[in-house]
């Protein structure tokens, strides 16, 4: 029973039924939203400071201690900007797109466990819910690119669909490995079953899932949708003001959501000694985001065909192999100590990654015209 | 050191092959008639001993009574150079044959000379203004353009 349900039950004994149902829900949503928005602002600051460090410069450090208020200044600046809608755009869709990008991101947090019983709804199909909800953003991005009536936007929109669909498969297959091992689709159950973090039990699955999610949240080296050096800003090129802020928040919210999911699925979520669960979760989320920023500041971007090849020829076969390995292990090895599984899986992961890096080279790609 | 070939000697070689093509020649440059420019250029490019495969610079000079189109040619293999010139006396419609089919390096440079000096390069595949916009009146690098 989650904290929220307990609250509902308690309230139900003193208030009428409908109020006892709605009020705790609102309280829960407000708390989670507060957490998300604060974390998003922290993320923006964190990324800028980290990028500064990676790029031999300081990063924002003027507004407030260590520049902590810089994201707020950015937010104010963005909100005060004029909202420009291109004359020939499809107005309704242009208006709707940022909402469709932003809302699913928030909805993901409904199933993220922040503590042992601190979760908004403990869905028994939590993982499936995450996968389903997070795919909706692709529609929003496609709508944004299409409705802007801009050629860069259109290219970006088409890239978005291809990229999202391709990377969904390895991500889902990697999640299946986790689900097999945990024996449940519920997020709380998955966390509870991680006596040893699944990062150690399934290193390959983690790598696939991590790369897949980085691609889904359009971050470098897979940031082809925004690719500021090629298609300028891609799908949000024609957005300004609050609508742009929605995309901006959506992007960081996406990063936060996926960092939470990665932490939950592979890094044993809120579990950890001494510190309270929420602190552990934040630490893990920050660590995951650190790696994402590190990749962003280090690696050049892939080309679109290489990106697709990487998904279909690189990640997908590896994800399938990983799934079979995990299934076999769960079937035959689960009786013996899990540390054996750790050793075996690290060997498998090393061999497979090495094999793929030898067999599979990106490059080429010229088309005869 | 890139050896600058003596214009008079090169002119002699050209004259042997194409009599009447040389308008003038001195130590520094060979001046050919604009009619025979393309043949001479082809000869300079394809003769093994000359082998001018690299068109460094192409420009035009307005001497008020005539325009002079200047070609600086280099041979990367022999490391020697020659200056080839062609004059056109028609002020309204100065024309020389284009050498784009020999050296593609001439593509932008001829367009530039057309744009700024008004020289018409006959046979250029895409003789449009390069730096100024379509519809600009006049050719600013001419001496009489104010």
């Amino acid at each position, binding site marked *: 029973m989650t904290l929220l349900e307990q609250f509902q039950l308690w309230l139900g004994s003193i208030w009428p039924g409908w109020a006892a149902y709605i009020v705790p829900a609102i309280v829960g949503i407000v708390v989670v939203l507060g957490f998300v928005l604060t974390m998003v602002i922290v993320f923006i600051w964190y990324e800028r400071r980290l990028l500064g460090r990676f790029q*031999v410069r300081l990063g924002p450090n003027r507004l407030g201690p260590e520049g902590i208020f810089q994201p707020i200044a950015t937010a104010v600046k963005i909100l005060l900007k004029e909202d420009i809608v291109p004359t020939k755009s499809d107005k309704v869709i242009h208006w709707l797109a940022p909402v469709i990008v932003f809302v699913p991101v928030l909805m993901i947090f409904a199933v993220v466990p922040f503590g042992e019983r601190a979760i908004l709804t403990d869905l028994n199909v939590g993982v499936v819910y995450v996968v389903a909800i997070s795919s909706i953003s692709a529609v929003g991005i496609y709508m944004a690119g299409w409705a802007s009536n801009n050629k860069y936007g259109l290219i970006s929109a088409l890239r978005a669909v291809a990229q999202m669909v391709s990377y969904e498969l390895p991500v889902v297959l990697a999640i299946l490995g986790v689900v097999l091992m945990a024996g449940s689709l519920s997020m709380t159950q998955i966390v509870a079953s991680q006596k040893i973090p699944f990062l150690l039990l399934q290193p390959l699955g983690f790598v696939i899932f991590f790369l897949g999610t980085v691609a889904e949240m359009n971050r470098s080296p897979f940031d082809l949708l925004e690719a500021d050096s*090629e298609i300028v800003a891609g799908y949000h090129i024609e957005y300004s003001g609050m609508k742009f802020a929605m995309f901006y928040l959506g992007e960081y919210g996406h990063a936060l959501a996926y960092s939470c999911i990665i932490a939950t699925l592979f890094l044993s979520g809120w579990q950890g000694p001494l510190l309270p669960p929420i602190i552990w979760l934040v630490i893990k989320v920050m660590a995951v985001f650190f790696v994402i920023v590190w990749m962003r500041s280090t690696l*050049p971007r892939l080309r679109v065909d290489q990106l697709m090849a990487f998904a279909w020829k690189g990640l997908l076969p590896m994800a399938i192999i990983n799934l079979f390995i995990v299934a076999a292990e769960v079937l035959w090895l689960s009786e013996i100590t899990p540390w054996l599984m750790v050793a075996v899986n690290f060997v498998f992961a090393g061999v497979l990654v090495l094999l793929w890096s030898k067999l599979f080279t990106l490059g080429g790609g010229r088309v005869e015209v | 050191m890139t050896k600058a070939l003596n214009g008079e000697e090169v002119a002699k070689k050209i004259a042997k092959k194409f009599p009447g093509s040389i308008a003038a020649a001195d130590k520094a440059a060979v001046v050919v008639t604009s009619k025979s420019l393309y043949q001479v250029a082809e000869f300079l490019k394809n003769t093994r001993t000359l082998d001018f495969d690299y068109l460094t610079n192409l420009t035009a000079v307005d001497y008020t009574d005539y325009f002079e189109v200047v070609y600086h040619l280099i041979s990367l293999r022999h490391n020697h150079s020659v200056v080839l010139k062609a004059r056109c006396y028609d002020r309204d419609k100065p024309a020389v044959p284009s050498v784009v089919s020999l050296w*593609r390096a001439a593509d932008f440079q001829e367009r530039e000379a057309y744009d700024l000096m008004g020289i018409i390069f006959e046979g250029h595949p895409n003789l449009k203004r390069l*730096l100024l916009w379509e519809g600009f009146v006049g050719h*600013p690098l001419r001496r009489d353009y104010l």
Partner: protein
Amino acid sequence: MAIRTEPFILNMGPQHPSTHGVLRLRVTLDGEVVTDVELVMGYLHRGIEKLGENRTYAQIIPLTDRLDYVASMTNNFAYVLAVEKLAGIEVPERAEYLRIIMAEMMRIANHLMAVGFFLNDLGAMMTPVLYMWREREKLLDLFEMVCGQRLTYNYMRIGGVSHDIPEEFLPALKRFVAEMPGFIDEYDRLLSQNEVLLARTKGVGILPKDTAINTAASGPVLRASDVKWDIRRADPYSIYDRFDFEIPVGTVGDCYDRYWVRMQEMRQSVRILEQAIAQLPEGEACAKVPQLLRPPVGEVYGHIEAPKGELGFHLVSDNSIAPYRFHIRAPTLINMTALKDMAIGWKVADLIIILGSIDVCLGEIDR
């Protein structure tokens, strides 16, 4: 049922982060594949050639700064060499060395920027640029020490340089020369074997040797296509025949080779700098040249190996104080001739890096 498709015309620029200025590329796309590229330029045309015809010979030097503003010292150098060739002026020994030092420093500064922004075009999010900026900043400080400017130097004079170097310059330069190879090694470690960089640049935008020669490509673009042609060697100007350096050449002429050639050229420039510092003689920094120079009637074409390629000045003199005709052979304009050959059949993303690997500067293309 066959799906009907249409070509897609995309106007890239003049405002685009990766056209390195106000260049417009009119790209015809088939999906993401480039089927045609047309260059539209002239957005930065200032008529420098026409302006030059109304300036005295000395007054043109600041104009040349505005050509390739990333490497303005070499523009000065090329121009004063051409004028000296025209007027037959001897340059003092010390001035020659100072010029070479400046030119090679400028080459390093330019290549740092070229490589950095090439990586940026690849999508490396400013990191390589900022690393390279660290060293370029030191070079700019050195230039500032010499002539008080960081972008448009106006340092060279007809007959020498404007004034001698300050005494703190040489120690600072020596320190830079000593530490620069280490930094180039660092870039090499960070970049040259990067898997994504290799995947994106190897075999991309190949410029075959004969096309490179035929389109008169010059500088690193020509040398990347395996043509060992460096004007510093082929037609040594100033005192380049006194230095020992190698000419790095590429093998196939793809984007990676152009990147690699630039990295190697920085090393060679450091070598030249070392030798020039060691040999630097005492003496005058500028010859006695009349204030209003009237070169004899005639014409001259002076060319040097600028960082971006062969920079040439074609001057016609009529024995007046201003050149009768002042023409600039801009290396990047002519290097761009081959852009179409390199880019067709590649994707939009490749078009951007091919353009970046040419290392364009619009100040020079449009003049």
